[in-house]
């Protein structure tokens, strides 16, 4: 453990701003170790991934400190000495991390990891591989380690258990190379087995973040698979020294379903990278790309095409919207098992010609699409947080959201967005018509939303998460 003084870790950011320029030129002290063998490790990893023996020379001898060459170069001698006493090494286990973006969890893992690293902490993200993504990314003190699952599994749920074993192996390799972490942080049930194993093998505190819950996703399902997922969620909440929920609503669900003491659960909201939405977008060109003619009103919805997202209600609502605003169009961004069903629904509702399904968009195209929209609809049946609403608010696009879960905590009705009844095409249509036909209202809501969303920064989330880590270190038990 690196936390040898009671200095709050969150003070690193303040400390960074106090460093004198002359310190930046100070030669590297012996106490500030380097990470010069990172490239060797990358090469070795290719062998490891294919099942060849790990190179024994990859010892942790040079990696006993989370303070790296990066810190030395940027902070200088004195700052480096202090940082060595307070910087943490964090193993972040997440099944998705960009460019593998299934949903909000990937954006969360990326935003949080980058913000923690920017505060000087050494963050190792262990995640699944993805076509085109490198197996190793090193931008010290942030490292991304992508794991291939080289064995076949019979079902999705057994595959999840299987990839957790590959995660465990990777965690072991990283601990040997860099030293044991101060914290292992898992996200949702998907990485709970590897997190629990890591906790007990290395005797380091486990922190678990709940982004969603199986009981919400599969409220009517009593399948063995669903029971397993629910069981893993409970196990994670039990084994974790501290639990994080992404909204107050999510916290209440965790506390009530798993009987977790409220004091063990911290509510830390998701955040948004404002800079991503400050870019200039050629709105006309983007709209033309999606066949939106000048003067037409563009409603955009973004997310996985699953029942949870409620896009079926939105498509049904579009028929009603068309009666008042015939030049409105709907852009559905995302993909998923329900795509065919939603396309068929658009046809049967008579709005297929006014609806475009884009499939998945890369991050640049997604920002373009959002910024080129007249409004963003989030018609979810349930939503533990709803990070896409924050992103639209950051982009200056007015939002209409369901009164569910975290969405209802983010958006205040008639103040910084419109809130509609969930599961109601009528309510969606009513709010949409109101927003699209009142430009002054749309401008007012968007302006207030953009101001509000400034509080949702990853730096803020990271600072709150560090407080949770500190508490977890103090309270961890390994029975």
């Amino acid at each position: 453990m690196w936390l040898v003084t009671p200095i709050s870790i969150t003070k690193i950011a303040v400390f960074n701003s106090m460093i004198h320029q002359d310190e930046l030129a100070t030669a590297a002290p012996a106490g500030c170790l380097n990470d010069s063998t990172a490239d060797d490790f990358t090469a070795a990893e290719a062998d490891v991934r294919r099942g060849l023996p790990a190179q024994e020379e990859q010892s942790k001898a040079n990696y006993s400190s989370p303070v790296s060459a990066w810190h030395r170069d940027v902070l200088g001698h004195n700052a480096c000495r202090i940082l060595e006493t307070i910087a943490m090494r964090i193993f972040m286990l997440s099944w998705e991390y960009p460019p593998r973006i299934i949903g909000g969890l990937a954006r969360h893992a990326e935003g949080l990891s980058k913000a923690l690293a920017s505060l000087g902490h050494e963050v190792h993200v262990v995640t699944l591989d993805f076509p085109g993504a490198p197996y190793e990314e090193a931008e010290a003190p942030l490292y991304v380690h992508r794991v291939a699952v080289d064995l076949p599994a019979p079902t999705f749920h057994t595959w999840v258990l299987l990839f957790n074993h590959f995660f465990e192996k990777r965690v072991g390799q990283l601990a040997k190379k860099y030293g044991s972490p101060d914290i292992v942080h898992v996200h949702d049930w998907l990485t709970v087995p590897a997190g629990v194993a890591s906790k007990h093998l290395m005797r380091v505190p486990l922190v678990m973040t709940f982004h969603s819950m199986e009981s919400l996703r599969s409220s009517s399902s009593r399948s063995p698979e669903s029971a397993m997922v629910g069981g893993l969620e409970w196990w994670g909440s039990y084994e974790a020294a501290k639990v994080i929920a992404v909204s107050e609503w999510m916290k209440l669900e965790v506390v009530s379903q798993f009987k977790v003491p409220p004091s063990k659960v911290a509510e830390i909201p998701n955040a948004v990278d404002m800079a991503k939405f400050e870019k200039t977008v050629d709105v006309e060109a983007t709209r033309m790309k999606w066949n939106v003619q000048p003067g037409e009103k563009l409603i955009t919805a973004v997310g996985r095409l699953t029942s949870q997202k409620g896009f079926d209600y939105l498509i049904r609502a579009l028929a009603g919207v068309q009666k008042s605003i015939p030049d409105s169009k709907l852009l559905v961004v995302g993909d998923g098992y329900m795509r065919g069903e939603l396309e068929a629904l658009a046809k049967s509702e008579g709005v297929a010609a006014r609806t475009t399904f884009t499939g998945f968009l890369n991050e640049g195209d997604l920002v373009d699409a959002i910024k080129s929209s007249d409004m963003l609809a989030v018609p979810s049946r349930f939503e533990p947080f709803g990070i896409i609403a924050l992103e639209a608010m950051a982009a200056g696009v007015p939002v209409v959201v369901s009164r569910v879960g975290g969405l209802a905590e983010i958006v205040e009705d008639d103040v910084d967005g419109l809130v509609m009844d969930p599961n109601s095409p009528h309510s969606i249509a009513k709010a949409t018509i109101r927003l699209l036909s009142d430009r002054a209202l749309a401008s007012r809501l968007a302006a207030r939303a953009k101001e509000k969303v400034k509080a949702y920064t990853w730096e803020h989330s990271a600072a709150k998460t560090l407080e949770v880590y500190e508490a977890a270190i103090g309270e961890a038990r390994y029975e």
Partner: protein
Amino acid sequence: MSELPKRILSSLMVMGAQSPDRAMSIDDLADKLGMGRNAVVSGLKSLIDAGYAKLIGESGTSAVYLTATGIITASSSYS
């Protein structure tokens, strides 16, 4: 998505067919799924048309793997 393509999509992911070098032969896929080759080919067609899967190799020895979009779609029940 109907059940057959959904099952094939999920199977390709959990069996590791996620890149051209890890593509799975259609015969092997049919064997793993316990289904006839023709049924698998029929289910695969909609996945390929949707951009979720790609076919490589000559007819008779062809193999299939998931595209990036296919992997994300196969994982889309959770996030």
